[in-house]
């Protein structure tokens, strides 16, 4: 290996280690450290899938994505709040919250995604009475005069509340500046997504995933720089191309898969070229207008330019066609449905998406996981068999 290549590899490794250290930071030390660097700094935690982080940013606070404890938290108290048939994410979230490991957060936002996250918002109100807790009711009516108007009232309510915590008023200009900062982040993430789509061997799934997660801990400006640096370095790293199939993954938009599961997919011969991991990080697909009314821009972004999600009503009835088009656009050879156990939105969505694939003659396989899944052999065999079958009999 040449010196230049070795240096590039070292830098990439350093970036992914930095991202992994943020992923492992369940005590939110990085957030505490960020708060200590300025007066009256506040952090606002949010649950999956999507909240408009621009509002938090414009109020001078740090948005912090709370994605559960994965397989790194022993659940003691969390299990005492939930029955066996409730998914795992709220258990680890409660475990971390009542154990004081989310104390760096001054407030919490719970987006409308499912009944479990919804109820969790009320549980936080009861368990953490001193904290700001708000349920973000994202519109399911996508008419600007109806859902749009309601959503803007929600955005302004959040801006007022978070502004009260920080002492910073969310003016139109401040919000425009935040839209611009997140636009730059969207550009960087698109570069990352496209690099992985076009040359997945350059962007291993684990690196990609950790980079997305880093965006849920870092200030957006730092994250944008990190992603840009990674994409540039990855293009020069000369990573070898493997004889893997290309897969799209669906179902993992809320409770996240453990890192071992992501490694397993790649080891089983699958390049993940499209997915819904950490979906909120890139939920709005296109840049938002920074010249007009910024509240409108944010509302329009969610209502008309956001990715499909199981928790979002498919008003235009294009779910099937959009999904098949996306799979084809990303040149995936097949689809892996991996949903968390007991995830109602993902598991109720799955038969519809599977039907769309069947009609389009696109192969798929499916399994379930939990954020603390520790045994991957069965999954490796299933994903490996899927990859082998596509190589042998498919177009891969």
């Amino acid at each position: 290996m040449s010196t230049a290549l070795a240096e590039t590899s070292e830098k990439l490794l350093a970036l992914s280690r930095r991202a992994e250290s943020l992923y492992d930071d369940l005590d939110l030390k990085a957030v505490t450290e960020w708060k200590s660097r300025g007066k009256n700094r506040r952090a606002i935690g949010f649950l999956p899938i999507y909240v408009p982080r621009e509002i938090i940013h414009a109020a001078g606070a740090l948005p912090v994505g709370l994605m559960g404890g994965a397989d790194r938290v022993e659940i003691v108290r969390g299990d005492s709040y939930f029955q066996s048939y409730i998914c795992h994410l709220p258990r680890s979230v409660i475990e971390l919250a009542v154990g004081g490991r989310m104390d760096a957060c001054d407030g919490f936002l719970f987006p409308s995604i499912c009944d479990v996250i919804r109820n969790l918002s009320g549980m936080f109100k009861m368990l953490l009475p001193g904290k700001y807790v708000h349920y973000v009711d994202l519109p399911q009516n996508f008419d600007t005069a109806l859902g749009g108007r309601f959503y803007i009232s929600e955005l302004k309510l959040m801006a007022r509340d978070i502004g009260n915590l920080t002492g910073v008023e969310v003016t139109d200009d401040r919000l425009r500046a935040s839209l611009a900062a997140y636009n730059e982040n969207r550009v960087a993430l698109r570069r990352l997504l496209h690099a992985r789509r076009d040359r997945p061997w350059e962007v291993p799934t684990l690196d990609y995933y950790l980079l997305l997660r880093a965006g849920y801990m870092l200030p957006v400006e730092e994250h944008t720089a990190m992603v840009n640096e990674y994409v540039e370095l990855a293009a020069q790293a000369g990573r070898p191309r493997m004889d893997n199939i290309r897969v799209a993954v669906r179902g993992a938009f809320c409770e996240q898969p453990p890192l071992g599961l992501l490694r397993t997919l790649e080891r089983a011969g699958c390049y993940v070229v499209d997915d819904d991991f950490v979906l909120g990080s890139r939920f709005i697909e296109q840049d938002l207008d920074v010249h007009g009314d910024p509240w409108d821009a944010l509302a329009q972004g969610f209502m008309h330019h956001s990715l499909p999600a199981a928790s979002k009503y498919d008003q235009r009835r294009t779910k099937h066609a959009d999904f098949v088009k996306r799979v084809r656009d990303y040149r995936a050879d097949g689809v892996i449905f991996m949903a968390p156990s007991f995830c109602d939105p993902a598991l109720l969505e799955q038969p519809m998406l599977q039907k769309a694939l069947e009609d389009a003659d696109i192969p798929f396989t499916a399994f379930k996981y939990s954020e603390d899944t520790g045994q991957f052999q069965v999954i490796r065999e299933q994903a490996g068999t899927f990859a082998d079958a596509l190589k042998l009999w498919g177009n891969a």
Partner: protein
Amino acid sequence: MKGATAEKDASMQKQKEMIANHFSELARVKETRKKVVYTFVPGNLTELINHFGMLPVLPEINALQSGMRGKSAEYISIAEKAGHSEDVCTYVKTDIGMLRAGNIGPTGEPLPKPDLLLLSYTGCFTFLKWFELLREEYDCPVVMLHVPYQGDGEITQEMREYVSNQIRDVVIPEFERVSGVRYDHDRMKEQLKLSVRAEDDLVWVLNSARARPSPIDAWFGGVYYIGPMFTSFRGTQDAVDYYTMLREEVQDRLDQKLGPVTPDGPMREEKYRLVIEGPPNWTSFREFWRMFADEGAVIVASSYTKVGGLYDRGFRHNPDDPLGTMADYCMGCYTNLNFPQRTALLEGYINDFSADGFLINSVKSCNSFSAGQLLILRELEKRTGRPGGFIESDLVDPRYFSAANIKNRLESYFQMIEARRKGATS
């Protein structure tokens, strides 16, 4: 062996006739050309559907009736074989399975296909996916009525406008288009006046459980009492007549100091007064009820009987503001309340109805009810000092109803109440 057939009050017979007539009407839509709207129970717009001469079909009711008729296991199996996960809501799977098996209603006749799906998803995200699944089966329009959740424990003006504007700008125009009938504001007012009359009587009936002995069971019996109000009949003279009849029967029992009518006749001795959170199990409904009745346990208040409105806490439809009142109604249902509100409501019931304790029937299928119930349990024990019990079952999946386990838990729970009583008097 106990009662092979349950005893029925006259009001129950009346309700049975109302339901039979409704299904008979559904069976005749090809002749009558009446339009059919599928929609959900919580926050339903029954008056509005009836206003346009359309007939509502409620998939949750189909599912629970399938459960009571012993059909749900087969339907769930059909849905699971078609690719639906064992993890998800069994109401959905029962409905999908029933559809695949010919969509035969409780009268043995096929249910008509919908002319419209009204997706008013108050308090349950699964509704959204349910109708996305159903619309794949039917070629008909869907109207989404997004009902915001009371996340901060209140209905704001913005929420109210959002819902009433959707009713005005989306729901009513689509109803007019499908039915060919124009919306008539004055006629709507008259319908809502009938709603209020029935609502007053329902509240009177529910509040009768404050008496000792309670003349009603507010959960097992309560699901019958809320039937006409929560389903297809609110705003009709039939509903008014039913609740008048029911009120007279309950008054009669109050006068005679009789307990509720159970599957085996009038309850003899009221030993335990309980408040219960969560829906019942439908597949073993009578067996479940007997587990309580045999022990002299009566449910004096329940949250499930509020999924179609918190009338007992003061809500009434306001005939002078049809759209606004429909919005308030949609947002005020129990499953649209946040956790602190739910907990406070149950605490109020425990105190107001002089309950000896409270139970949670945690159903696997319903995350809207179940997620976090164990916090409610702790909080209520802390606030009221009265014992809480926890049992688990499901709505319509018989695989999750373990009679022996539930009976054991209930017996232990009743012993706990007795022990507290002895402790209090010693």
